[in-house]
Structure formats: C-alpha cells, structure tokens
C-alpha cells in the first residue's frame, strides 16, 4: 500500500504508523463527561468502505495525516495534513511532476 504524504509524496505503508479512527471527537481537556471520554477512547467506527483515519508518517516527515481509505479495497481517496495549517502546496515540486 502506498500513502501519498502531502509533504513527502507517495511512500510505502511501512513508513507510516496507524493511529486509527479519525472520526472520534476528543472531549475538551477539562470535560468531566465520562460517556464522551469512554466513547472517545473505546468506541470506533469500523466501516466496510470509506474510513476516515489518522496516520503518522513516522518514517518520514512525522506529520500526522487525515486519510480517507476504503477498508474493502484499500483504495485511498484523500490525504491531508491533520493540522489544518500545513498547506498541501508544500508538496514537493519534483514529485508533482512525476
């Protein structure tokens, strides 16, 4: 499987670290809503189809990525920095050509 890191370009899955279900909402740090915390820590969407996931490019630029990947085909339809403030325009020019 290849994941196209917005910074590094397409890289083998071996360079990435899976951080799981990207749909989970972490409660505010001070929240005492235990149900919300439990849901965040333990409950996962586990769809058969497109899945929003967090991956870290741990063997590359170490940025965290939001990836939409199909769990039936492993097809990846979108990759973006998990941080909104990294621009996809950072993408390497040479790799943009190829």
């Amino acid at each position: 499987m290849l994941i196209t890191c917005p910074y590094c370009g397409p890289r083998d899955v071996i360079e990435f670290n899976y951080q799981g279900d990207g749909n989970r909402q972490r409660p505010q740090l001070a929240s005492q809503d235990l149900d919300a915390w439990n849901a965040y820590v333990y409950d996962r969407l586990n769809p058969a189809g497109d899945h929003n996931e967090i991956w870290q490019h741990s063997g590359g630029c170490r940025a965290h990525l939001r990836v939409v990947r199909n769990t039936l085909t492993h097809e990846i339809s979108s990759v973006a920095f998990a941080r909104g403030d990294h621009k996809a325009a950072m993408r390497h020019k040479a790799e943009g050509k190829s």
Partner: protein
Amino acid sequence: MVERQSPLELELRTGSHGDFEHGVDVILSETRPGSILQLSAWPGQEKKLIAGIRTVTGLALPDGAGAGSTDGVRSVFGFAPGKFTVVDEAEGLAAAFAGVVTPAIGTLTDLSHGRTAIRIHGPKAEWVLAKFFAIDFALPAFPIGTGRSTMHHDVFAQIQRTGADQFDIYVFRSFARSFWKALCHASEEVGYEVQ
C-alpha cells in the same frame, strides 16, 4: 577542545573492499560536519525562517517540500513541513542562528552530536541506496540539493542529494555503526572504497 569521537570508529576501514577488482563503484565516507541543526518554523513563519537561513548561510532555499541546496561547505534542506536541516562543516552554527531564529519565528535544535553524516558517492550510489530505502533515487525524482526523510526498518534517515551521484545521509548516532556496516555489506557487490 577535544576531538569528537565518531560512532563509526571501530568499523571505518579505509581502502577498497568487496568486488573492487572489477572497479570501485561507490565511495563511502563519514563527512563529520561541525554543525547539524534542526530549524522549525511556527505555521506561517516559514518564509521568515527561510530568509534567516539565507542570511546566516548564504544559501537560498527554493520553495517547496524537500527543497534544498548546498555549496559544498554548508547544506540546507527541508525535511518536514516548516522544518529544515542545516549543516555546516564548522562548529558553532547554532550560535550564528541564535539571534535569527527568534521565538516568534520558530525553534532551533542542535543535533550536531546526535546525527552522523555518511556520504555515498559514485555511479552505483543510487543502486546501493535503493537496497535500503523505498524512495525513488532517480535524478528526475530526487534532484540535486533536495532532501528526503525516510527509513530503513528501525533506522530513520534524512538524505540530501548533494551531487548527480552523491548523497549525504544523516542517521541517528546510536544507529550509525549498524547502518554503516549494512551499507558496506550492501556495497560489496559493486566494489567500494572507504575514505
């Protein structure tokens, strides 16, 4: 000041090795730069940091991910969003940046001891490196001056292409000896010389 100890010390055997009777196709060396810095900009401050790098090193950094340049003495390349590696043959580069990378722009981390710089040079440099890293080393995909962050199993590496057939590889010091041994092993097939 005492000389820094190289982690490769016991394994760095100068001379020709492997199948060198048929020619030496790569030359391996440790470049031992005096300074290896990591500069990181806060989001939106990247351009100021790039300008600062130019001020201190005289190296213009092209726009774009992984972009970099080298003048043979100093080298710089981006390795992650807003993050750059700057290398100087001389020690003390951190001090030169002290007033340039202000807290408003970003941070500076001195890795002069923490990273080991290994150079591979020669017509089979791409071939040997491709044994380790799953990135495309062909010149059009990896132009001169640019950098890449990648890994070989447990060994994280930043690689800058510093010539058509030359790459500088920065690995964690603690892994450097293992990586060096593996690099030599992988170079035996093509014949290599250690300088």
